[in-house]
């Protein structure tokens, strides 16, 4: 059992270390965001699995499952919010980026999305302005 716990915590820690190195080394904000959120969630999942295997009690397993559930639910939501904010505030893309699929589809004034055919300037404003 100890071998399994050591292997799981090692894999999780390795993923977290790779994410930290990527956060330092990546040239662009969006690449840094992409590296961080996914790798950190996977690494924490492995570490939490190792913790559950060490204790092997019902209460600990329930807590660990709750933590993994929170992480899996909240990480994509916060990643999407941060990326959306970065795109609106005019974050520059890396000079090697060859495809920007959102170019011209977001209205920079009202922050709403249009599809391919529409002209963003002729669109009616949204009803609720929050």
């Amino acid at each position: 059992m100890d071998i399994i716990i050591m292997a799981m915590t090692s894999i999780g820690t390795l993923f977290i270390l790779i994410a930290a190195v990527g956060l330092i080394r990546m040239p662009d904000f969006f690449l840094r965001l992409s590296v961080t959120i996914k790798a950190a969630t996977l690494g924490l999942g492995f570490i939490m699995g190792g913790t559950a295997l060490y204790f092997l009690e019902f209460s600990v397993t329930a807590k660990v499952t709750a933590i993994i559930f929170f992480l899996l639910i909240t990480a994509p939501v916060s990643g999407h919010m941060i990326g959306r904010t970065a795109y609106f505030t005019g974050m520059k893309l890396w000079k090697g980026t060859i495809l920007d699929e959102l170019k011209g589809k977001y209205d920079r004034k009202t922050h709403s999305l249009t599809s391919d055919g529409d002209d963003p300037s002729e669109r009616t404003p949204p009803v609720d302005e929050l």
Partner: protein
Amino acid sequence: MLNNYLLFGILPVLSISAILVFIRFLKGPYTLDRVVSLDFLINIGIGIIAIYSIVTDHSAFLDVAMILALIAFLGSIAFSYYLEQRGKR
């Protein structure tokens, strides 16, 4: 065996990654870089708490980890929401 491995093998690597993230937190050119770094720092803290609860054989530390997972989410959501509202109109 397991305790020694976790104390001298796993926890230093997690500390090194926390230091690397903190470097990005200090020098990040934009505010959103700091938001992402803060989120990731709290995630590394959750991992350290989990490893520490194995080392000390107390499972009560995991409650703190669960609260921290929620706090990190609320923090990054609030930061990104208000930063987005600032650029609107």
